[in-house]
């Protein structure tokens, strides 16, 4: 599992590198563009995701102790929190659409470096989009886990798949922990 997560680190690492290289070149445009993101919604989402990591950790904890019902409840709580995150993300995307901030032909930006700001928004959409996709996959995995738990496949001796699901989920959380300050808090002062 950790080898898989290392490949995931590389996968997101490439995007973070691209982001960082352009940030070092287009700093002012990044700062202007970043101010168009909603810190309140982004902050709430970070909190929601951290909560979901806690419920996931508690689910694995319950699995270690062999409590079937509590595991299901905590995984369900994680799924609900994940859905809240994706819902808020969707409304953020919609606002960007309304404000013509989606890169492409209809991109409109009042600042001086519209093209450079477009680069920032490209990174914003690709990175948060890939992150959201990972969350959708995670929700799928969690649903499968609930099914397996209800069929009585796991016990306090064997619960590795639940633990792996937890590792995957925490990884997705960590990606967001970096995305939030890098995208939303470039230059707010």
């Amino acid at each position, binding site marked *: 599992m950790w080898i898989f997560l290392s490949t995931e680190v590389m996968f997101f690492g490439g995007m973070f590198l691209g982001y960082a290289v352009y940030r070092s070149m287009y700093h002012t445009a990044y700062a202007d563009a970043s101010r168009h993101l909603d810190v309140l919604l982004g902050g709430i989402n970070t909190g929601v995701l951290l909560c979901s990591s806690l419920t996931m950790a508690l689910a694995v904890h319950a699995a270690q102790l062999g409590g079937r019902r509590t595991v299901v409840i905590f995984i369900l709580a994680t799924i609900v929190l994940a859905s809240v995150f994706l819902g808020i993300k969707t409304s953020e995307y919609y606002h960007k659409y309304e404000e013509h901030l989606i890169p492409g032909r209809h991109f409109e930006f009042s600042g001086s470096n519209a093209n450079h700001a477009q680069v920032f928004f490209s990174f914003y959409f690709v990175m948060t989009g890939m992150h959201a996709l990972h969350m959708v996959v995670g929700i799928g995995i969690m649903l499968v886990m609930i099914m397996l738990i209800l069929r009585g496949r796991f016990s306090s001796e064997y619960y590795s798949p639940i633990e792996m699901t937890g590792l995957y989920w925490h990884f997705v959380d960590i990606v967001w922990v970096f995305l939030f*300050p890098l995208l939303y*808090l470039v230059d707010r002062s």
Partner: protein
Amino acid sequence: MTEHIVDKKKYYVVFASLMLLLAATIGIAYIHLGEINFIVALTIAFTKAILIVMYFMHVRYSPRLLWIFVGAGVFWLGILFALSFADYLTRGWFPMPTAWE
């Protein structure tokens, strides 16, 4: 499997610290510190990541072999960034040599 079972209380403490760090990173972002803002934001992000990896992902209680796998991922990411920036940040330090006359 002989797994170390972490006390539930520890999860709550880690979670509370993560939330505090989140509040800190948002708060500090609005204080004008120039370049230091970025350094603080990254430091807080790394602290949060380490807390999650160590406690939520149980690495702290895992065998040292696992540490090597985790470290390898981070190390390779370091190479990716170090070598790339060794290129991008040093461009323009020296004038490009012109063609032979």
